[in-house]
């Protein structure tokens, strides 16, 4: 089976980096890291193929739901990561798994691919 290709959208570099490392150790491939909505949208648009994404819902103070919509548009599964309690997430994303920080990197794989 091919390595799972994952995009990490998280604005704390050290967190993104630690997640990358841990996911890499589980055999996943990290196809990119983005810290802003703009960077994330660009990656979602340009990366040829990937299997899943982790989306921190707040990037530098901006809500990342446009990134979620772009991922949904491409049919790529994603999970939200957040420090906020889950009630703030809009209803239309209620089917999206939410990881409350801090979480185990393995939880991403479990939430994305079951």
């Amino acid at each position: 089976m091919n390595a799972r290709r994952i995009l990490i959208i998280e604005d704390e570099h050290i967190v993104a980096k630690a997640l990358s490392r841990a996911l890499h150790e589980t055999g996943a491939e990290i196809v990119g890291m983005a810290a802003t909505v703009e960077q994330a949208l660009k990656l979602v648009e340009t990366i040829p193929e990937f299997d899943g994404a982790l989306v921190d819902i707040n990037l530098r103070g901006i809500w990342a739901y446009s990134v979620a919509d772009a991922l949904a548009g491409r049919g790529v599964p994603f999970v939200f990561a957040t420090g906020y309690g889950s009630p703030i997430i809009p209803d239309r994303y209620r089917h999206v798994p939410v990881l409350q920080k801090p979480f185990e990197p393995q939880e991403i794989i479990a939430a994305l691919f079951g």
Partner: protein
Amino acid sequence: MNDAHELRAAVDLVGLGRYRSDPLTQAIQWDARLKAMWGLPPDAAVDLGVFLAGIHPEDRNRVQAALGQSVDPDGDGVCDIEYRVIGVNGGAERWVATRGKTVFEDGKVVSFHGVVLDISERKRAEHTNLMLIAELEHRTRNLLAVVDSLAEQTLASCESLQDFSVPFRQRLATLSRVQGLLSRPETSPVTIGEVVELELHALGAEPDGSRVIVEGPEVPLPHRSVQILAMGLHELATNARKYGALGAPSGSLSVRWHVTNDDGPRTLVLHWAEDGIASRRTTAAHPGRVGLGRTLIEESIPFQLDAQTHLVITGDSVRCDISIVIEQTTEPRAWNALR
């Protein structure tokens, strides 16, 4: 003393609006203050339709249910409810609290009267509190995620577990120090000078104008740049203590910064320079591995901020240049967006 007079004065001082209704005639009487809350002139006629039209549509059912309950002869006859009023013109939204009392005679309603108070200010304060609590949870959980990752990354860059404790706890102490700065109100932003001096002071280095020079204008930092900058400066300072200018008798450190907007956006440019440390570096320099400190400076700062960094370590000197775009001083705060 005139009791009616005093009562009247008290009602005016608190700002109560008053109402009374007669269930037999269906007549409703409101005072001028209550009419004003509904956007009505003092001489306007009021009926049930006017009353309901001025209530926020999402709250109408709740209000009607509460009123219905208060005329139930088996109940206590009290109506006690807070709801939103949009006024008959649908203009300004305000929160009101009302307490009304139904008077029964032989199980029949004979009158209903009560008072209304505008509680918009209190509701706004409550809302702000909720937002602050949500933001606090956000910050705390994010900080825990940072600590978690910091532990992972520190461990990964250690030769053995014995090497872990000191750098990890120092990094934790940096995070802790910076929280004190970050909890200040937005009206007194953290400046670059404060962060530089805080991190130098933590390692026992005080600017003395010769061996340790700290020089630059007061420059407020964007809120979200403070933590990562402090962490970067901590790495520089702790390395200077271990291998560089802060540990060598002949060493000197200067930290200088200025603001430029020559090439476009307003940018803070900081130069960290250590000299005279030849003897230290040759004996103590790390053998070739990329430490977490370097990663924080070379990767984390540019990733998290609109920034560029350049770190050069030679035999007898250290140079680190950090440029950060600081144009956007009124950055969005997450909890503002929650409103």
